[in-house]
């Protein structure tokens, strides 16, 4: 697959490839520097996170190498922050709930909203137009405006469990997903669908056999965006879920903070590092499919 990719752009690469790679390599390093600081500080003791946030040592390099090395020993906490974080946040349970809620919600959102988006793009009437505008509206409304009323409705309908919150996420995430799918459905040529319908496909078959595969790159994009949002979301689950039973990761992280501003920063950074690993893996796995989908489309075209 990589080979295919190469042959497409061999000519251009010969001209600027090396230079661009070099440029982006530099920018990338600057880009992730703040994340690297989080990683580095996640191994340090609280005192030194504040005292020397940009250094791994308690002592400055200008005091000589030996004192610098000694300073590293003094500032570093090894894996202890990670151990503390895992214990305090009940990490594996929280991880499980987060994983379930994220995966279930994303799957439901993708299936329901892509269908909805296709329908409202292909059918033109007042209802579909209204639905589209409502979806736009839902993206504009500040969450603070609906949070208490949403929490009340979810409570009334007994949605305060991981299954129930999937429905809430479908409702609240529908706006963005429908909006994005419609944007891409508009770009799909209608002839293929018409041909399928003439061949005797029902709209459901047409959608799942013809449209959905074409939508694959968009599906992946929307999944990434939704997964990221749901994985990191704090306020909505904290208001909707029964947080005694179901603490998701962001909620568990929030509970590291104590009254009077007390906070174990080392554990906080450690748990954040742990929390982003799965989503980085997920993203990297998905990236492959974006390219694959495009290549598949190119062959057909």
């Amino acid at each position: 697959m990589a080979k295919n990719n190469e042959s497409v752009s061999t000519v251009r690469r010969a001209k600027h490839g090396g230079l661009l790679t070099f440029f982006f390599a530099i920018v990338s390093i600057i880009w992730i520097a703040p994340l690297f600081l989080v990683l580095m500080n996640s191994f340090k003791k609280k005192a030194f996170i504040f005292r020397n946030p940009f250094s791994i040592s308690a002592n400055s390099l200008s005091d000589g190498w030996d004192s610098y090395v000694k300073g590293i020993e003094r500032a570093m906490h090894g894996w202890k922050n990670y151990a503390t974080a895992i214990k305090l946040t009940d990490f594996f349970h929280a991880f499980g709930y987060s994983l379930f809620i994220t995966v279930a919600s994303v799957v439901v959102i993708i299936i329901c909203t892509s269908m909805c988006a296709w329908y409202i793009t292909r059918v033109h009437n007042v209802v579909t137009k209204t639905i589209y505008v409502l979806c736009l509206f839902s993206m504009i409304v500040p969450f603070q405006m609906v949070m208490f009323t949403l929490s009340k409705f979810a409570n009334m309908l007994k949605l305060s469990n991981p299954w129930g919150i999937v429905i809430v996420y479908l409702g609240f995430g529908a706006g963005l997903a429908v909006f994005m799918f419609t944007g891409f459905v508009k770009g799909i040529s209608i002839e293929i669908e018409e041909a399928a319908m003439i061949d005797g496909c029902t709209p459901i078959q047409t959608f799942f056999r013809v449209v959905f595969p074409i939508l694959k790159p968009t599906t992946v994009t929307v999944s990434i965006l939704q997964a990221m949002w749901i994985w990191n979301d704090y306020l909505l689950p904290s208001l909707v879920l029964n947080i005694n039973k179901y603490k998701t990761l962001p909620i568990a992280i929030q509970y590291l903070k104590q009254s009077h501003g007390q906070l174990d920063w080392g554990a906080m950074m450690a748990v954040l590092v742990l929390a982003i690993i799965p989503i980085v893996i997920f993203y990297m796995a998905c990236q492959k499919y974006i390219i694959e989908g495009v290549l598949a489309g190119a062959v057909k075209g």
Partner: protein
Amino acid sequence: MEKAIKRYFPIFVLPTMIAFFIGFIAPFVYGIFLSFCKFTTVVDWEWVGFSNYTRIFYVNGKLDTTFLHSLWYTTLFTAVSVLIINIVSFSIAMALTKGIKGTNIFRTVFFMPNLIGGIVLSYIWLMLFNSVLAHFSKTIVSTQWYAFWGLIIVVCWQQIGYMMIIYVAGIQNIPGDLIEAAKIDGANNLQLLRNVTLPMLMPTITVCTFLTLTNGFKLFDQNLALTGGNPGKMSQLLALNIYDTMYGTTGWQGVGQAKAVIFFILVALIALAQNKLSTSKEVQS
């Protein structure tokens, strides 16, 4: 074809709409209703008419301009962030669809700031900004403009990767034969960009401008963590201003709710206009 699909409304649209009703429409309509009430919890309200709305601007018989200030500050912030984010992320997306070495790694790197949010990252940025500004005896909240650019930097850093992904998907959706055809016709790179890529990308551009626009108007976490609205509420974006009203002032939950309604109407107008504008430029297929 449209007729054939039409009957399938219950299967295609209804599930989403039911959830949408529970998750958004019902709370939203109820929220508008509450903006005309004085309430402590949502089940415990008292109708007060428009007084919540007048109290946004008149406090103790005096004109209160904090909401207006935060309104134009937010508008400016949104305009600047929309421009920068879209231009930069589009450029990066173009560069990263040419198949240069390390494309996958770069895409991942640019996207990563999105994956981790909230207090810790803002804290790291605070450290970075302040350690630089300390040389000039200034901080990120010395004036509202330091705060402004600080917020712009953090928001761009977080969202450029996000928008880049959407642009990449859009660029890769452009049929290869279209570009080949243009090349055979002798189009140079600039012409290719202006006459093929940009028009074909219009739907994507619509999506991205709309997203950055609403993100800008709704920004909350970074604002709270990085500047906290300082100096003296001068860097308060709208969402934080609303939040502050709901919790800072006793019995003002209704006023906060009313601010949210005004805010919503304003952004809705802008977003609808934007959507109309860029949709009209989209190529009909």
